[in-house]
């Protein structure tokens, strides 16, 4: 199928779906009985002509255009209506399944989304962030110190993909779709600090934007936010000056050293997904964690050995999570630089996985 035709079909289908949804929404608002798209009315005698079968035939007219003629809803009309809906829903499901199975949509990053998909996704992303940002308490970011610290972090962690005034992103980032935005334009001018903070902290799922929650301290998340808001005011020359004046940043993930308390299993389940445990292990109750690089973690709570080398005690679990290769230099499991509190939380979660069958 030609790219143009495919693009056209996708946009048309999506457009039709959106239009149908909006139409239904409007119908719901304007009509107290939204399900009543068609009204049955009695067959006028003259319409029957001479055919005996046709005399009993029922005639359906759109309810919206015949408000005066609209009779009370008959049971038969409602049945037909529901059946039509069921058929349409089934056809829709088959169409969607075929769309997926035949790989109609091209996920290649060398091909941009179709215009409608692009704008719909971008709008949905913006709304999703905006709605959640309303609950964020924004600290005072006016001190130049925030921007200065934020610059050091930006140069260390953001520049690679987003570039900076007069500085291009690194080669790998050029191939990203959706493309990493120039933050001076969209984020710096249009986005609220709370929204920028949320995006930095939690990332954006179907894009290359990672979550920094487990890599940067709360304070640094805000410093970065402050700098992004400053970006539109910084000229390429000023950026160069800052670049020469400021020292390099400390490596991410090492900046927060909170004294570790007892582990919290719920926090551990959340944390372990941010250390990509899911890319190697199958973990009961975690979507996408069905991998077989390492052993399954179902039943890890009462497995006798950890990593096949350490007797399974909470202290050893913590030791293993801290640096597996220090315990067994040959282990394929790398040091994920998990922070102390996260280690304890993850260990607490692992000790809830007591069923080997993986349920």
């Amino acid at each position: 199928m030609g790219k143009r035709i495919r693009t056209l079909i996708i946009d048309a289908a999506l457009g039709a779906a959106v239009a149908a949804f909006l139409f239904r929404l409007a119908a719901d608002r304007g009509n107290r009985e939204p399900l009543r798209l068609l009204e049955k009315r009695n067959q006028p005698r003259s319409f029957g002509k001479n055919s005996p079968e046709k005399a009993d035939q029922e005639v359906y007219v759109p309810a919206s255009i015949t408000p005066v003629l609209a009779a009370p809803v008959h049971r038969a009309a409602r049945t037909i209506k529901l059946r039509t809906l069921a058929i349409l829903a089934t056809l829709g499901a088959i169409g969607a399944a075929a769309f997926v199975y035949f790989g109609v949509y091209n996920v290649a990053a060398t091909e941009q989304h179709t215009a409608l998909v692009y704008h719909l996704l971008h709008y949905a992303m913006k709304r999703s962030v905006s709605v959640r940002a309303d609950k964020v308490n924004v600290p005072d970011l006016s001190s130049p110190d925030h921007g200065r610290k934020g610059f050091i972090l930006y140069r260390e962690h953001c520049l690679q993909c987003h570039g900076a005034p007069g500085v291009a992103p690194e080669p790998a980032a050029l191939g990203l779709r959706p493309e990493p935005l120039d933050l001076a334009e969209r984020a710096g001018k249009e986005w609220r600090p709370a929204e920028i903070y949320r995006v930095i902290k939690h990332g954006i799922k179907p894009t290359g934007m990672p979550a920094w929650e487990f890599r940067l301290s709360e304070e640094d998340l805000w410093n970065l936010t402050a700098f992004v808001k400053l970006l539109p005011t910084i000229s390429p020359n000023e950026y160069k000056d800052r670049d020469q004046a400021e020292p390099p940043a400390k490596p991410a993930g090492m900046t927060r050293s909170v004294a570790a308390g007892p582990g919290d299993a719920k926090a551990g389940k959340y944390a372990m997904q941010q250390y990509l445990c899911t890319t190697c292990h199958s973990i009961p109750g975690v979507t996408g964690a069905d991998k077989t690089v390492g052993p399954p973690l179902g039943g890890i709570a009462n497995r006798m050995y950890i990593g096949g080398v350490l007797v399974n005690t909470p202290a050893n679990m913590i030791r293993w999570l801290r640096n597996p290769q220090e315990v067994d230099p040959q282990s394929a499991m790398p040091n994920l630089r998990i922070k102390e509190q996260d280690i304890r939380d993850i260990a607490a979660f692992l000790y809830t996985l007591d069923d080997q069958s993986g349920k």
Partner: protein
Amino acid sequence: MRICPLLPALCLLLGMVGCAKTPPVQVAGGDAQRGTSAIARYGCTGCHTVPGVSGPGSNVGPPLAMIAKRTYVGGILANTPDNMVRWLRDPPGVDPRTAMPNMGVTEADARDIAAFLYTLQ
């Protein structure tokens, strides 16, 4: 009901998505059938839960379900038939830290056991 003809069509389409099973990796000289009895003989089920071989459901080492798909053997070797046989014959010889003991598995038995393990996918 008018929707009836559509449902089988949907089922058929979804059925097409179902995964096709790949044939197990071949181990030279190994026989999966003989491997099952070798597993019972060497007491592998004393530490591992092995699908298809009855045992107490041990959880000393990791379960061997889907071991054919596992990327690493013993967490340290790339999962190839040769490495699997090497591991089965003498785990501490490969990794001195491992808790898995040398069970005195012969080369022929190791090949049979490996052949069986590659059916667990």
